[in-house]
Structure formats: structure tokens, C-alpha cells
């Protein structure tokens, strides 16, 4: 029994390595291309700046992966979740920095919990429901803060200054946001592979009906998936707000589709139940490297859009082709 488990977990680790190899091959190719593009590319500073450039996207993608993995495609309310947790944190700074941060995360979790309940319990269509939430949360934030930006105090020693400093903290040369992103990915990976919740998510993502028939409480699993996504998004949102030194309703716009791109490019199937967290990390890396190299080559934003879109479709197309070639169903 014991040996069986080890061998199966070994096999699953091997499978993970194999299935995520593709995206890392792309990343490696990009690294080589980067070196060819500029001698300054392969420096510790540049690599660190690429990592910190995609750190926030990485956090959101890490959360989005839970949604996609469990068969709920995408959570379009993550940008508003980011903005909301940031605004709430800034608004409650008078209570001190720690309560403010906690309240900020709680505010994000509240949105996640609502989404999780509605999608999990009532089986609402996740994309449409979260789109509706994004709409009315945007309206709510615009209304409550009358379309204004919320500035924290910046005098040294105040909670406001501490809040602004969060984004700028670093251990040695490594920024805190990079560490937080890596930690989130590590925890997510462990949760996905080593816990009951992770395995249940996989089954729910593969087939909701089968999961229900085998006695899994699907609504609870979906609930926690949305909660996980909202948690990651609110952490990223607080960092984003701290970076921008102000809270406002339109922070985080565009992170929804960017995160889905990273998740899908990393090999998580949109139909759910297939993919790995290390793959998502690879996807985030590829996006960061691609942007950096194109800027190095002097390719402007308009052309970058086109290249990114083409790479995205090509990578995903290739993954699908591989899966089919190996006799697995298409997703």
C-alpha cells in the first residue's frame, strides 16, 4: 500500500514534469533569444526586474488557476476584487496598518465568498455571474467614493507610509512581491497535489456530475476555489494599491484576461481538471520574458500585442495537438 502510493506520487510528479516541460522549453527559448538580443539581458538585475514586473500578474494568475482548474473557466470580477481590497485597506488605514491589511483582504474574500456561494451552490454560470459582479462592484465603488482617488498619508511613521512601503520592501536584492508570488505558487502547488481539496478540485473540474456522484460536496469545493482566487487577487490588489500610492476603482483593470492568458498558456485546460501550478508559473514567466525581450528589441506596444496574441494561440494550439497525439481527449 505504502509503496504503491509512493510510486503513484512519483509517477504523478514525473507526469507533471513532462506536461509542464513544454512551457519551460518556450521560456528557455526566450532566454536564449534574450541573450542574443542584448548582452545586458542575462544580468541578475534584469532577471529580477522581469520577475518583479510579473509578480502581481503571477499572484492573480495563481488564484485564477484555481477557478480554471475547477472547471469554472474564469473569474472576471478579480480586477474589481483587487481594486476593492486596495480601497478598503486605504480607507481603514486610520485603524493601523495591520487591521487595514486584514480588512482589505477580508473585503476581497467577501466578494470571493459571494461568488463561490452563487456559483457553487446555485450553479450560476461563472463567467456571467462574475461579469455582473464586476459591473455592480464598479458602480458601487464609483458611487461610494464619488469617482475619486483615495490617498493614504505619506508622512513617515504613519500607517499610510507603512502601507506605501509594503510594495517597496525587499530582502537583500529580492523584492517582497517576488517572494510573496513564489510563496503563493508553492502553497498552491502543495494544495493542488497533496491535499484532499486539491484532488477534489481536479475531479470537480473534470466532471462536476461525476464528482457529485462520488460523494464530493461540489458546492463546497467550488466555494473554496473562488475564495482562494479572491485571496490571491486581494493580496495582489493591496500590493498594486501600495505601488500606485492610492486606491481607486479602476486599479487592476485588464488583470482578468491577462491572468487567464497566463493560466492557459501554462497548460491549464479551460474545460477544467487538467494542468499544473508549475505550468502556470511557467506561463507567467513566458509572458514576462516576452514583454521584456520585445522592449529590448525596440518592438512597440502595438506590435507587442500582435506577437503576444500569436504566441498565445500557437502555444495553446500546440498543447492541444500534443494531448490529442497522446490519445487524450481534446478539451
Amino acid at each position: 500500500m505504502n509503496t504503491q502510493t509512493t510510486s503513484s506520487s512519483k509517477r504523478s510528479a514525473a507526469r507533471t514534469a513532462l506536461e509542464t516541460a513544454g512551457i519551460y522549453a518556450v521560456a528557455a527559448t526566450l532566454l536564449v533569444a534574450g541573450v542574443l538580443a542584448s548582452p545586458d539581458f542575462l544580468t541578475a538585475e534584469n532577471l529580477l526586474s522581469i520577475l518583479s514586473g510579473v509578480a502581481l500578474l503571477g499572484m492573480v494568475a495563481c488564484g485564477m488557476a484555481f477557478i480554471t482548474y475547477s472547471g469554472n473557466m474564469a473569474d472576471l470580477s478579480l480586477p474589481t476584487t483587487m481594486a476593492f481590497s486596495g480601497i478598503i485597506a486605504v480607507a481603514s488605514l486610520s485603524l493601523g496598518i495591520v487591521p487595514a491589511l486584514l480588512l482589505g483582504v477580508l473585503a476581497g474574500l467577501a466578494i470571493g465568498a459571494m461568488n463561490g456561494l452563487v456559483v457553487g451552490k446555485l450553479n450560476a454560470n461563472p463567467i456571467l455571474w462574475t461579469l455582473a459582479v464586476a459591473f455592480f462592484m464598479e458602480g458601487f465603488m464609483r458611487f461610494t467614493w464619488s469617482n475619486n482617488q483615495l490617498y493614504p498619508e505619506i508622512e513617515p511613521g504613519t500607517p499610510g507610509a507603512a502601507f506605501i512601503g509594503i510594495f517597496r520592501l525587499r530582502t537583500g536584492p529580492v523584492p517582497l512581491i517576488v517572494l510573496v508570488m513564489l510563496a503563493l505558487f508553492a502553497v498552491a502547488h502543495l494544495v493542488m497535489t497533496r491535499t484532499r481539496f486539491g484532488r477534489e478540485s481536479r475531479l470537480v473540474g473534470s466532471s462536476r456530475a461525476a464528482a457529485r456522484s462520488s460523494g464530493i460536496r461540489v458546492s463546497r469545493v467550488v466555494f473554496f476555489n473562488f475564495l482562494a482566487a479572491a485571496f490571491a487577487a486581494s493580496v495582489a490588489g493591496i500590493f498594486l494599491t501600495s505601488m500606485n500610492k492610492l486606491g481607486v476603482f479602476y486599479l487592476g483593470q485588464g488583470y482578468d484576461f491577462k491572468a487567464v492568458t497566463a493560466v492557459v498558456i501554462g497548460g491549464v485546460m479551460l474545460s477544467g481538471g487538467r494542468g499544473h501550478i508549475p505550468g502556470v508559473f511557467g506561463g507567467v514567466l513566458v509572458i514576462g520574458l516576452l514583454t521584456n525581450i520585445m522592449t529590448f528589441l525596440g518592438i512597440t506596444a502595438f506590435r507587442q500585442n500582435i506577437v503576444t496574441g500569436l504566441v498565445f494561440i500557437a502555444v495553446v494550439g500546440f498543447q492541444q495537438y500534443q494531448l490529442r497525439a497522446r490519445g487524450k481527449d481534446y478539451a
Partner: protein
Amino acid sequence: MLAALFAYLSLFAPNFLSLHNVSTILKGASLNATVALGFTIILILGQLDLSIGAVVMLSGMLTIGLQPSCGWAGGFALALGAGLLTGLFNGLLVVKARINSFIVTLGTMTIVMGLMHLYSDGGSKSIDDFRFADWLVAPLVLFLPPLALIPALLVALFSVFLNRTRWGRVFFLVGANPEGAWLAGLHRDRYLITGFCLCSLMAAAGGALFAASLSSMTAAAVLGTRTLMTVLAAVIIGGTLMTGGKGSVLKSYFAVLMLTTLFNGIGCYGWGFEVQIFVNGLILALVVLYEAYAIHQHELLKGQRPDLLREVREGTVFSACASPETAEGESNMQNRDRFPMVCLTLTALVAIAAITAMYFKFASLPVQIIAPDGATTAYRGLPEAAHRLDVFALRGTDGQPYLFPPTDDPVVIPERPEDPKRLPETDRGHWWDIEFAGWRVEKAPMPASPGDGPAGKRVILLKAGDHPYWTAYVRGFHVIAEAYGMQTKVFNSNWNVDLQAQQTDQAINEHPDLIIFAPVDATACTPLLRRIHSAGIPCVTSNTIPCDEAMRYCLAWTGPDDWGQFRMLARSFADALGKSGGYAIVRHMPGSSCFFSRTYAPITELHDYAPEMKLLAMDTANLEADASLQLVSAWITKFGDQLKGLILADDGFELTGTLEAVKKAGRSDIVIVAAGNSKTGMDSVAAGETLALTCQSAEGDGALAVHTAARWFQGEPIPPVTYLPKHIIIRENVDGFMPAQW
């Protein structure tokens, strides 16, 4: 059911008092209605197309860009062709490469948007021939203009095609039951590809029609994203299922109409965009919840004994053609069928109530003055005394006067070059038409000033969008309007040209004494200003300077001299750098006028003033802090010590991200200048991180527009262009501009 809806429409039509409003709504809905038509088809097939917004923009851009060389027919054909190609690309990838349509179209969305920006170079396109645009919006049949008729005709056509022909009905089968369709010997793939082509084609048609009706097209991506989101919401509210197999183009059309009517009503109340999007979200949530609830109930009942017994009692089990489950399913379907209708009806009712209320409200509205804080309170309720108030003595939140008395210095306008566009982009002459728009324009005949002063006049402000700058703008606008005893109302188009076009019609229908128009787009506003002009309403444009053609139809323009300010800024920048070294520019958002002014004013100025300086790179970071951080970090690594200075088009998020990148690289020697002046920017000037900012008073901007309007009401002559005063904010004088307006 449809009859009921028609009854509703005809029921609330009389409440509009004029058929103008109905046609306003029908015209306003034309873009979304056409796009929704194709989108419904793709949802019926059980697929998704996120690229419709981008296709709308590309096809609009192509139509306008190609019209001068290929004519309208050619422009339309090529734009539709581009749409068809996108659809084919989507369809082939979905069918042959078997990639999920969500992913494929997410990819094409970025690609098509990139192509559109590449084609337009990030700027708007326009033409000066308005005959076709005029034909599109003029009544053709009864009170209905072609712009309203074409989408309706298309909807009717597709409705018949989908419901009455064999091929049309197959779409439903393919969407509901792909295996079934395959077993029935149908080519599922062909229908899917056709569906994608139709969807993109309709999006392209919508975009082309929209662009033609404005004779111009904006490059601001917000039009595309808002169209996608609104259409998605409308189609779902119209009862189309995302899982495929169910939907109706007719209901989608009415859902779009209802949403437009609702927004119209909300706008009439003077409520902002926040209420619109909130209500939109609530309705969508309601529909989604109900769908979910219906399925939930169905799941609960499935296989339950009492339910079976009930069915046995009712005899459904024994009915000849239906098994219990399908009977159950059908009744459920009917339930769900009815619900969107209820939603539509509710939405319609709210809209009717809003619009009716608006008419009564406006008919009996007394002169109402919004209470400001401070100096002007004493004049409340005394409009006849108000205009004697010294408006130049009023001071804004930053301690600066709202308005400065006109100076005697004549504005020197250089000679226009022979053919500006043939000069290189680094030559200031190349940009003459944009920089000095409005100065040499021969105005169309303008309405005569009443000459009885501003007191009690009704002024409508059509503002471009929501931004803290605009909050401050409206503050300045209100204070001065009240000082003159004017009555005001504000519409907010949220950076969306489509919405601004609707709101223009709406504002005209209210017959104000004057309209203050802050264009979302410098060229797309031309037909809107023409509409205002032909309605005989005087108009002052503000903030973004419209193109020459548009300036013909307004009394005057007031706002910041963006080009002049950036020329000053560039000179301080060059002086600080000793007129040598490499620099880079972080540009504004593509589609905005600042995208050009804040890039090419410094480039051309430095070309003459400091020819030794070298432009290393320029790119947009879409005004995002993290994108700016990435961009500037990469530049610092790439150019190293060559990079001596940075010019930023924004002192908000762009500056924050740039400062972060500079700090991280330990390059505090890099000289930074930016467009001002927000709190973030001035804090950083005070801290010595940023060398200089331009000063653009948001309150002053709003104040100047309404002040100019007041002067016109008094019968004073007003210059065609009035600039806000120009300042450069540096560390020594920054205290005078604090606290920041936004």
C-alpha cells in the same frame, strides 16, 4: 410574447413626447444591436467570441481610412472583408485546431486590437465628407433614419433565417447537441465556421456603420471593451443561453434597446455612469441567478418520487411523444423563456418612469443653484445680482484663482506650412494642423447671443469621462456656473464615443441654452457638433481641442495649451541636461490627443532647441504603473548610461512606475519631467525626484469653459481659442500649487 413587447414599445412611445427620443434611442442602439446580432448566433452555437469589440474598432478604422481612396463601397467591402477574415481565422482554429473558442478569440482580440492600432498609428481617423453620415441619421421612413433601420432590417432578416429555414434551425441543433447534429449527418464544422464568420461580419458591419455615421473613428480601446461587455450582458438578458442551443436575435435586439433606453433614462435624471453600470450589473445578476435557480430546481426535482407521481397524475408520462424528463425540461424552458421577458419589461418600465419623470421635472424646474462652499453662497437665489460677482476673485482648492483676467499679449501663431503632412514628424510644421486647430477656421453661421447675461440660463456639460481630473473639472465648472446663476446638468460618457453620440442627441432633445462639450475624441466629435449646430444650440468645446472641421460648428474652444506647455517643459528638460544626452518618452494612451501632443511637442521642440539630444525610445504603457515599471526598467538595462532623461505624458501611475524603476536601478541621476499636476506628481517634485511638471488646472479648465459661455450670453465677443495659463511647476514654486486639486 413579441406582440406584448411591441405593445410595450408603442405604449411608452407617447411618453417620450417627441419621436425624436425614440429615434435617439434607436440610433444609439445601432452599434450594439448589430454586434449583438452576430454574438447571439455564436452563443446559439455554444461558442464565445471575445474579439467582437476589437473587430468593431478595426472595421471602423478601415472604413474611414480607406474611404478617401476606395469610396464608401470600397471601404465597407474591405472592412467587412477584414471582419470575415477574422471570423474565418477564429472558426478554423476552433474547428481544426480544436482550441476552445474563449482562448482563440482572447488571442484574436489582442491581435486585432494591435493591428488596428498599427494601422491607425494610435490616432483617430476622419474624413470631411459628411453627406453619407447625414443621410444615415436623417429620417428616411417616417421618423426613422437609416442608422436605426439597418440594424432592425438585419435582425428581421436573421430572425427569419434562423427560425424559418432549414439551415438556420441547424444552428440551434449544433449548439444544443453537437453529437446529435453529427449523427444526423450535418457538417458541424461548417456551421461553426459559418457562425464565427457571421459573428465577426456583424461586428464589422456594426463598426463600419458606426464609423460612417460619425465620419470618423477613434483609436481608444475603451469603445471595443465596453461594446463587448454591454453586448454580452444584453444578449444574456435577452435570454440566450451560454451553453448553446437557445437564443433569439429578436430578443437580443430588444434587450439592447431596453438597456439603451434605461441608460437614456438614467442620464435624463442626471445620474452618472456609476448608476448605469450598477443597474446593468444588477439586471445581469438577476438573469444569471434566475437561470441558475431554474436549473437548480430542475436538478432537485430530478428523480424524485413526488415529482414523478405528479407527472403521472398529470398524465405527461403517458403522452405520446414526450418522456417525463423532456416534459419537465420543456416546462422549465418555458419558465426560463418567460423570465427574460419579465426582466425586459421591468427594465422598460423603469426607463419609462425615468423618462416621464424627467420631462415633468424639466418642465417645472425652478432656477436651481448648487450650493458651493464659501464665497458665492451669499448670491444664492439672486441670479440677477450674481453676474456682478467678481469671478476673478474666486479661488480653487489649491489656492489658485479659478480664472485669470485676459491678458493683452497677442497669441503668436506661426505661418502654416504649405503641406504639413509632407514634412518629417520631427519638424514642428508637420503637426501644425493639430497644434493650432481652430485658429484659422471660418465659423459656420452661429446663433446670435441673447445679450441678456448668463443668469438663469440652462447649460448642459457633456464631459468626456470619469477621472479625478474630471471631478475637479466639474467642481470648477459648478462654482463659476453658480456664480453666474446658471443652471447646470452634467452627462458623462465614460470615454466611450458611442455613449457620447447618444448623449449628444439626448442633450439636444432637452433644448438647453448652451452646451459645453468636452470631446472624447478630437475628430469623432465633428458630426456631433454639427448636430448641435443644426439644432440651433450654441456650443463651447472644452479640454480636448477638436480638429479644424469640428471647430467650425462651435462658438469657441477653451482648455489647456498642451503643445505649448510641453514645449516649455521640453526646454526646462533640455536646460537641466545641458542640451545633450539621450532621452526616452513614455507616451499617453493611444486614441487620446495627448498621445501625440505630449510626444511630438517635446520631440519637435528638442529637435530645434537642443539638436544634440537623441531620442532613444518611445512607447505607451497605457497609463499603468506596473507596465511603466517594466518598460522603463527594460530601457534602463538596454540603454544604460546613454539614458539621461525621461519625459512622461502623465504624472500619476506612469510617474509612480517610472520612479520605482529608476529607484530600483539606482539611477537617481535620470532627469524626469511629466505632465501635471496631480498630488502624486507634486509630491515627487517637492521630494526632488521629479524635475518639473506642467501645470494644468482642472478646476480652471472647467471654470474657463463656463466663463466663456457667460461672456457669450452677455454679448461679448469671444476668441475662437482661449488657452489656460501656462506654468512649469518646479521644486521652488510647488508649494503655491498645493494642496493638489486631485
